[in-house]
């Protein structure tokens, strides 16, 4: 036998379990509805309680039992997981550590349990009634074991011994069910027994003997004083008194409040809804052409339903940003530890909903921005006190919806962006000419330029090879914008504006040659006419004058090599990506179009001008213009690229 003290091993295990509980609780605090986390906490507490009892930590086991019970209630939907509950269990978890170490004041535990009780007050723990049926007048028991009981390790003789130990009884074997010798397998058990107890034995005591085989065996157990032919059911359920069982409907309703669905199923559903919308618009076209009144009214009804279905579908993909924000608490906690600064993270508008894909893709940029605020924005406690600010720095993360966009701001009350240093750095890096005249916003936007970093030295926090330029690009890839504001000594604010969904956009449908294309409406600034005369005059140039500003433009007919003649009244659609603009010359503006975005095939990965495709009301396909790409093309007038497009078209 090993000399290692099992109690010591248990202490280590308990420590690990409590670490896990702490971690899960921290996560749970951010995702209160996460059933997996509730389960995880419950399991850990359950194990801790069990092991504690086994190794003589009775106080720990008893205390943990209450916490476990609380989580069991949450697990079963009888009580909600609340921030308060998480907080209580977090402090309880500290108390458990003390109990493991053996120096926990009892009063602490009682105070925590009192808080715990309050935290899960709705629906107090009712004991399950388990009435003891005393068979004062004795019992008649009749049983036959499962055929494979002996092979599976149950020895019938020992069960009979156990029954004898309960009290005086007579046992008679029933051998009528034994098969002929030819069919007999020696390890099978075919004998049944009739047992009569004369004295006072409880039903539970008798049933306990058969605990391992009861589910699979034949058994009747009847009080002796009952009518001889009366047979009671083999398992007598105690009266139901538990709240949970008394109202199964409310439990089911609670469990049904949210359903987890794999995202790909939503995507499939989205495709089907897209098809339906297309089929419906074909139907309404037909109904409009040669349909009778009845067909037209059915068609209109279907149009309404299809529209509602699509809107509902959009909502299904929306998740609250709370799932995103919650993940930053730990980040800020760690940043505070690593920088030695006191940092408080305040989050607002967690219920704001955004498309699931958007939420996922916002994570990395937000991590970077928050790191930046904590690392560069906020001062040390000493500096803050000297500047007359509260010792703890504040990072405020907030979200709200504005129209079709979600606006996310990261605000800190730190020192603000040092404009002089930004300028010096930009000049040193050749981003701007020395002494160049810049607007304030232009100057601040320089921090998003590739390779720019305002940190005097790269710290281990921010120096991860990811720059603000990557943040900006990610936001733009979400068709969003990023703005920065800063007041010296008071802090800076980064504002992200992101469309609510990636799956659908408002588009401007245009015609170029014979093809139809979608311009994302969010990037359209204005639409102008370009007369044939003006067109000819500007033929040799690639710039037009727009309100005294020169704007480069692209003739999409040329770029796409349509080989068609221009319409007499072409249009210029002026699009922008934040600061940069370009005019797109098209033949016709068809109108607004709500666009369900379909990804381009991998076979078209080398085609850069389009970000996706969409299906039109008539079933045709239109390509969605990649504005960032076109603006870059327009700005640089990459000749070789254009020639390739011409040659290839």
């Amino acid at each position, binding site marked *: 036998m090993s000399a290692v003290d099992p109690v010591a091993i*248990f202490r280590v295990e308990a420590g690990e379990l409590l670490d896990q509980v702490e971690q899960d609780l921290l996560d749970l605090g951010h995702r209160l509805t996460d059933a997996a986390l509730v389960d995880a906490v419950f399991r850990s507490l359950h*194990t801790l309680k069990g092991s504690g009892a*086994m190794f003589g930590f009775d106080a720990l086991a008893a205390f943990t039992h209450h916490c476990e019970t609380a989580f069991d209630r949450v697990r079963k939907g009888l009580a909600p997981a609340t921030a308060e509950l998480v907080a209580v269990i977090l402090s309880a978890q500290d108390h458990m550590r003390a109990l493991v170490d053996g120096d926990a004041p009892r009063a602490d535990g009682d105070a925590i349990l009192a808080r715990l009780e309050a935290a899960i007050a709705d629906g107090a723990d009712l004991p399950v009634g388990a009435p003891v049926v005393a068979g004062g007048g004795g019992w008649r028991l009749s049983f036959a074991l499962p055929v494979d009981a002996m092979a599976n*390790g149950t020895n019938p003789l020992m069960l009979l011994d156990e029954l004898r130990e309960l009290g005086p009884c007579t046992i008679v074997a029933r051998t009528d069910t034994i098969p002929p010798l030819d069919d007999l397998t020696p390890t099978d058990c075919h004998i049944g027994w009739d047992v009569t107890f004369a004295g006072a034995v409880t039903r539970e005591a008798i049933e306990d003997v058969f605990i*391992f085989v009861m*589910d699979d065996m034949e058994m009747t157990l009847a009080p002796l004083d009952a009518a001889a032919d009366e047979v009671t059911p083999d398992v007598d359920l105690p009266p139901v008194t538990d709240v949970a069982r008394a109202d199964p409907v409310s439990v089911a309703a609670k469990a049904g409040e949210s359903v987890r669905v794999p995202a790909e199923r939503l995507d499939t559903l989205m495709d089907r809804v897209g098809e339906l919308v297309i089929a419906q618009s074909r139907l309404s076209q037909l109904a409009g052409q040669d349909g009778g009144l009845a067909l037209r009214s059915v068609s209109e009804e279907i149009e309404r339903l299809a529209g509602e279905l699509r809107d509902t579908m959009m909502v299904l993909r929306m998740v609250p940003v709370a799932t995103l924000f919650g993940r930053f608490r730990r980040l800020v906690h760690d940043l505070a530890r690593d920088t030695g600064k006191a940092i408080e993270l305040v989050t607002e508008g967690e219920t704001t909903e955004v498309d699931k894909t958007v939420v996922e893709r916002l994570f990395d940029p937000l991590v970077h921005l928050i790191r930046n605020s904590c690392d560069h924005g906020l001062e040390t406690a000493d500096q803050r006190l000297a500047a007359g600010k509260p010792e703890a720095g504040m990072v405020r993360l907030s979200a709200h919806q504005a129209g079709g966009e979600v606006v996310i701001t990261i605000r800190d009350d730190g020192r603000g962006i040092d404009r002089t240093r930004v300028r010096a750095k930009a000049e040193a890096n050749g981003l701007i000419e020395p002494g160049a005249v810049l607007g304030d916003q232009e100057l601040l936007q320089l921090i998003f330029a590739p390779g720019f970093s305002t940190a005097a030295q790269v710290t281990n926090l921010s120096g991860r090879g990811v720059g603000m330029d990557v943040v900006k690009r990610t936001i733009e890839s979400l068709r969003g914008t990023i703005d920065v504001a800063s007041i010296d000594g008071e802090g800076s604010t980064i504002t992200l504006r992101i469309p609510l969904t990636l799956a659908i956009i408002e588009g401007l449908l245009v015609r170029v040659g014979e093809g139809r294309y979608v311009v994302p409406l969010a990037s359209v600034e204005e639409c102008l006419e370009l007369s044939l005369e003006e067109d000819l005059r500007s033929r040799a140039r690639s710039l037009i004058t727009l309100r005294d500003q020169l704007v480069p433009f692209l003739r999409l007919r040329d770029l796409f090599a349509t080989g068609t003649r221009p319409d007499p009244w072409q249009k210029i659609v002026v699009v922008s990506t934040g600061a940069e603009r370009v005019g797109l010359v098209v033949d016709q503006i068809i109108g607004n179009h709500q666009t369900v975005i379909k990804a381009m095939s991998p076979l078209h990965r080398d085609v850069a001008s389009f970000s996706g495709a969409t299906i039109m009301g008539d079933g045709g396909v239109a390509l969605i213009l990649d504005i960032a790409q076109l603006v870059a093309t327009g700005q640089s007038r990459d000749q070789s690229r254009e020639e390739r497009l011409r040659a290839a078209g």
Partner: protein
Amino acid sequence: MTATILTVDDSPSLRMAIRIALTNAGYTVAEAGDGVEGLAQAAATRFDLIVTDLNMPNMDGLTMIRELRKQPAQAGVPIIFLTTESDAGMKAQAKAAGATGWLVKPFVPDQLVKIARKVLGR
């Protein structure tokens, strides 16, 4: 002759607890850390009782029980598995695999000894 019991569990502290409880009750105890080790031990020695956890790395308890019951030499050897209250389905599966009985975790050493006496009769 004292009965020899094999305990199969991946948690060293639990194995230790089981060993202490059973040795104090006069049994001889052998240990295995997972199902694979358990099968190997059972092939080498005929045990009077096997006590096994269900969740284990390499080979879980269910698989081990099934494997054991395939061997004629293991017919009739009582197998007790350790489970938690939440594993109602697990209980049924383990019974179907050929287990004799179970012990719900957490348990105090006395319960284990009681069960050992129940199935061993000594």
